[in-house]
């Protein structure tokens, strides 16, 4: 056996636990770093052991390197506009499927805004004449309900997409995977907050009849629009492309303006479209979400990887997916949102955290890029320095950084990228999410905004599942045996890419 590496001239100790030991080491002439230790995984013993099994595990490190590389290399481009029924596989034929935000949830358990939105969509599709009739239809189980994510899509707030709705088609040119998102309706009484009255239906029909074909014609002229450069520029202009999208929306309008004027569409339609987009500072959010989903999906399906590929909320539960654990959702009740309420509203009125828009944080923007949009911390009584610290702190729980997105307030450092579920549990630092707050009752709308975090229990469960997937035998064994690391698995053409990423 080779000689030990411990015997040297001096000793540097990392102290984990009681501080008195650290003080004594220093007093005795040694060097010491004292950790501020907390029980990991909220004190869950099995979770703590599973965490130790997968931290610094060579197979996991290699898998994460692969997943992160695919994420960073992703190039999401807006290739067109389609009708949901034509591109979401589950909606093919005449199947009565409506997709919603967040992990799976049954109709009786859905929160108010989501129920309202589902009913509005049923009326929109013509499956029922009225909201009441829609309620009877859905209560009897005649409408299927699935997460957007299961169909390759994302939707903000209630996130309801039904077959006749138009969706953006975003393709990751680096790997070929696609993601879809509906159009943002704007503010006020809108479907995504659960409103389902006639004006909501009318607006949705207008979007399908006017805005969608116009944008289709525009894109035919512009060709595919790369979304990462738009997002990167917006991040340098005060947006974080989740709760602040004004700059990105303006950049998008700039990009399509010439084509919009020259496109072969009725002038009235062009006018209506530009008014629709320009009147909604959050228009770009849905493009941002689709782009982020395309980037995250590129990283999915790498066996052994602890990289988070989805974070989503359905108004009751918060769900997390990892690259290395397939389609499994790891769920826990959503954390409360710490924020400011518009006059007349309070936390008693608030719905729980809702929407697929946490896909932006999953991709390293949104709350992770808070340094780019310091105004948001005013919602929680913070300062711009706090916004910067949020972004810096997220580096503790990510695999690396994304050179495509730089943050001026951090001396143009690259934004954190690739949330590592292991590091979340190990450090006790939760992913931060910038969130709008909806009223708990359907149809009232947004009543505030603020900052929340993803719940620890999701990541603990995910780490345990990952550890199980790596064990050769049941029971605690330190590491899986030596073998080919996933990243070095045979790279013959056709293998190793593209499989297992579709839910």
């Amino acid at each position, binding site marked *: *056996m*080779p*000689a*030990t*590496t*411990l*015997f*040297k001239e*001096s*000793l*540097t*100790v*990392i*102290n*984990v*636990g*009681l501080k*008195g*030991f*650290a003080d*004594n*080491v220093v*007093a*005795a*002439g*040694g060097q010491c*770093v004292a*950790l*501020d*230790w*907390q*029980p*990991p995984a*909220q*004190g869950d*013993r099995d979770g*703590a*052991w599973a*965490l*130790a*099994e997968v*931290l*610094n*595990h060579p197979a996991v490190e290699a898998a994460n390197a692969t997943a992160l590389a695919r994420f960073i290399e992703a190039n999401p481009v807006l290739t067109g506009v389609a009708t949901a029924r034509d591109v979401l596989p589950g909606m093919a034929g005449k199947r009565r499927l409506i997709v919603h935000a967040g992990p799976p949830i049954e109709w009786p358990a859905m929160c108010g805004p989501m129920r309202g939105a589902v009913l509005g969509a049923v009326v929109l599709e013509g499956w029922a004449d009225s909201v009441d009739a829609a309620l009877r239809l859905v209560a009897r189980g005649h409408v299927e309900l699935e997460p957007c994510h299961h169909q390759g899509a994302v939707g903000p707030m209630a996130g309801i997409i039904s077959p006749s709705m138009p969706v953006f088609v975003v393709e990751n040119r680096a790997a070929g995977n696609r993601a879809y998102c509906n159009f943002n309706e704007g503010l006020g009484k809108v479907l995504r907050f659960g409103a389902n009255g006639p004006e909501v239906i009318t607006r949705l029909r207008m979007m399908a009849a006017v805005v969608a074909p116009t944008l289709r014609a525009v894109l035919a002229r512009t060709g595919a629009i790369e979304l990462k450069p738009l997002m990167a520029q917006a991040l340098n202009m005060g947006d974080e492309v989740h709760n602040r999208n004004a700059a990105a929306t303006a950049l998008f309008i700039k990009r399509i303006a010439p084509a919009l004027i020259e496109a072969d569409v009725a002038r009235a339609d062009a006018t209506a479209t530009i008014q629709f987009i320009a009147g909604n500072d959050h228009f770009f959010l849905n493009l941002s979400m689709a782009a982020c989903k395309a980037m995250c999906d590129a990283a999915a399906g790498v066996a052994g990887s602890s990289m988070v590929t989805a974070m989503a909320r359905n108004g009751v539960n918060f769900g997390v997916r990892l690259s290395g654990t397939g389609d499994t959702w790891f769920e826990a009740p959503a954390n409360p949102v710490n924020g400011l309420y518009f006059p007349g509203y309070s936390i008693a009125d608030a719905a729980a955290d809702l929407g697929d828009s946490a896909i932006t944080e999953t991709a390293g923007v949104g709350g992770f890029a808070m340094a780019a949009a310091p105004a948001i911390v005013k919602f929680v009584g913070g*300062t711009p*320095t*706090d916004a910067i*610290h949020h972004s*810096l*702190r997220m580096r*503790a729980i990510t695999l690396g950084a994304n050179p495509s997105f730089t943050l001026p307030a951090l001396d143009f450092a690259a934004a954190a990228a690739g949330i590592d579920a292991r*590091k979340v549990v*190990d*450090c*006790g*630092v939760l992913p931060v999410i910038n969130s709008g707050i909806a009223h708990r009752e359907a149809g009232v709308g947004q009543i505030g905004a603020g900052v929340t975090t993803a719940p620890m229990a999701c990541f603990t469960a995910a780490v345990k599942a990952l550890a199980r997937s790596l064990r050769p035998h049941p029971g*605690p*064994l*330190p*590491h899986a045996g030596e073998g080919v690391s996933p990243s070095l698995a045979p790279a013959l053409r056709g293998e190793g890419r593209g499989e297992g990423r579709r839910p």
Partner: protein
Amino acid sequence: MATTRFKVFANLYKDSVTLMQLGAKLRERDGVAQASCLMATPANLAQLVDADLVVDAPASPSDLLVVVRGDALSCDEAIAAADELLQSAGATGDGGGAAFSLPLTSLAIGVERAPDADLALISVPGDYAAAEAMKALSLGLHVMLFSDNVPVAEERAIKTFARAKNLLVMGPDCGTAIVNGVPLGFANVVRRGDIGLVAASGTGLQEVTCRIHNLGGGISQALGTGGRDLKEEIGGITMLQGLAALAADSRTRVIVLISKPPSPAIARQIEDAAGAAGKPVVVHFLGATPQRLPAGLVAATSLRHAADVAVALARGEAPPVALTAPSAAALATVDKQAAAMASTQKAVRALFTGGTFCYEAQLVFIAQGLPCRSNAPANGASAFDGRYDGHVFLDLGDDDYTRGRPHPMIDPSLRDAAVRAQGADPQTAAILFDVVLGFGSHENPAGGLAQALADAQREARAHGRTIAMIGHVCGTDEDPQDKAEQMRQLEAVGAVIVGSNVEAALLAAHLAAHRA
């Protein structure tokens, strides 16, 4: 009319030391009869019963619970004070204008902060300790695992893992080590030299390293293995690794191995490995002298003897024989005290802070056929049932006495109280004790002890009795406490302080034999 108030701090963790200190602070407040701060685990909640502080608090194991009993106003004020103390202890270096650094909450970030780190010193609750050790090992760090209550299966898993990576796990339940000259845990300041040690006993390691220093020798490395390393289920993994490391260490010229007797199979494995070390090895299995050792190995029969032999071998001299009787001067003093004793005084009451000292002292009595009871009985002693009758040997650092309170080496008040109580017992002829100095120990253990001894003697004298007080101070002249001053305080109240635990035990046994 006393009321009980409580507050739950959700998802707030503080270590047990901080909680005990906070509890003590709250109890000091006027109007507070009883107070406790704890993490709301089932085991901790059960302890509230004993303190008459049971409350129906909606708390989970990751929540912090503060319970106070007293008059209503004082309770509220105490809880408010606790709130302030707990919340203010938070910040990890961020907040408006301060330079940002990643929160130091994980080993990985710790290693980033100190990339040349060699070792992780882990003292977290036993439920999580092995997992933290595994993380440290997979980062390439050696581990000293101070925590106890680690399941044996986990100890085996981490030691097997460590061995495959050529890393050392010292522990679990390892309280003492000296690595690269730096004392870790409860350890003394000793000069560097060429004697290396591997020990399954913390206070045993302290006794031998101190004596080596006091004899003018020095230590290259002093490694701990934890109390369970040489059991069958573990198989001596760390002892064998430590032995091999010292064998390969150019600075080490003599090796000392200390442990309670392992099973014959493991003992043989260790002896074989020691025989192949290529340098002299002193083997001390407390209470079991090996009959036939391979060449190059010398058996020691006490901790004192182990140090004496090691120093001699390091100097190239012949190993001396072990001490079999106390010094003439000490004998004379004790005999004189015995002459003044009442006829009821026949028992030795041994009150130890170091578990191995308790064990070694029992071995001396058993070898002389003197019956003894103990809460940690050696082979041949009987179990202590709470009645002070005959010779009693108590290890006050044992789990029985340290639930919810600090170890007696840190907080000597429990041992002092036990000492004081012996004065009233007509049976007590002698009080036998240890005083352990060094890092981790109380800053003045002899102070309270001397007071307690004096009180016991006064009580005895008031009833026409005289008590002999026999002990030793385990420490060096370099330790943070002033060893000479500690000895002076004890001798000033009439205690006989000898140079080692075995000599103190021999002295007490001599008295016991003559009083039987």
